[in-house]
């Protein structure tokens, strides 16, 4: 899933300080599952804004709404009869959400309510970590099913570098050295010879480096 974290409320308050009718829009997709942008967080953000304005003795109207997904136009459409009543909209979906809203409602002021982080999964409740860098050409099978592009801080394809210690990366004791895991796993699977093989430079054409990506699947297009 796409993992995001809440933007500091202070920053959001600053963003919308000149508006008195605010719509907070959540998303029931990834951001609900990672506890950052579902109905629950919509209510918390809305309440926080109200408290802040109340404290400053300012008028405010905050409405809450959570869409099935903000990355599908049909659901974004749901807002069409209400969005006009608000002078600011905070989307707490991933970075896709505010853009879909902006594109669909060109006259509305849309603000992002979360900081989108990465594609990853939950290690346990409350802890998420990155797994995929979206490079466009998956190679994890060469590395014992683990991705060095997303998970090595230097994206080494011929690691590990000399900074690996006690299974941790040189950048932080909290970051595991994925190459340490790769080597151990390949040794366990008796596949060391594959790891000794030289991996040539990767083509980044399919990654973001190749420009903004768009995918057309002819068999699906109407």
């Amino acid at each position, binding site marked *: 899933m796409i993992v995001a974290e809440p933007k*500091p*409320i*202070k920053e959001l*308050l600053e963003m919308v300080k000149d508006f008195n009718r605010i719509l907070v829009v959540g998303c029931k997709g990834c951001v609900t599952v990672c506890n950052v942008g579902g109905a*629950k967080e919509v*209510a*918390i953000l809305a*309440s*926080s804004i*109200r*408290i*802040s304005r*109340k*404290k400053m*003795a300012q008028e405010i109207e905050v409405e809450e709404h959570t869409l099935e997904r903000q990355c599908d136009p049909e659901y974004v459409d749901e807002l069409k009869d209400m969005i006009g009543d608000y002078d600011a909209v905070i989307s707490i979906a991933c970075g896709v959400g505010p853009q879909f809203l902006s594109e669909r409602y060109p006259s509305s002021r849309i603000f992002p309510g979360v900081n989108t982080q990465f594609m990853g999964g939950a290690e346990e409740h409350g802890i998420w970590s990155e797994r995929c860098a979206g490079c466009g050409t998956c190679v994890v099978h060469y590395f014992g099913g683990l991705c060095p592009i997303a998970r090595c801080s230097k994206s080494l394809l011929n690691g590990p570098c000399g900074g690996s210690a006690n299974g941790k990366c040189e950048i932080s004791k909290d970051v595991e050295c994925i190459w340490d895991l790769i080597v151990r796993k390949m040794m366990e699977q008796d596949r060391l010879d594959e790891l000794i093989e030289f991996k040539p430079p990767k083509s980044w054409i399919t990654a973001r480096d190749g420009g903004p990506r768009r995918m057309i699947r002819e068999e699906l297009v109407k």
Partner: protein
Amino acid sequence: MNDFKPQIVAFCCSNCASSAANVAEGMKKALPDNVKIIQIPCTGRVEILHLLKPFEEGADGVYVAGCQEDSCQYVSGIAKATKRVTHVKKILEELSIEPDRIDVFNLSAGKGQEFVEVAYEMVNKVKELGPFLQA
């Protein structure tokens, strides 16, 4: 003289709050009338939103009173609540509101006076802070 009488909302777990109330009653100790209690089955039931709502309604302070960490009937209820209170403190800070307006207390069922004492402690602390909404 500070004659400000803060309005405080308290979320209390029915298990420990009830037996603490029992002991408090036995000691002829009473809760201050400006502390308003909401009973819940376990403090683990309280959400961040529930802790914010009283402020939206103009309360001056909020607290959660639950069991000792090692004697929660539901194992981790009070631990969860404690973390949520910590989070609300952060939110309040970001809203430029004193984080001391919210707190969490671990009561032991046998120490009823604490039930009343924390209520007064909270009242006094919030009194120091003054009204949440300036008149």
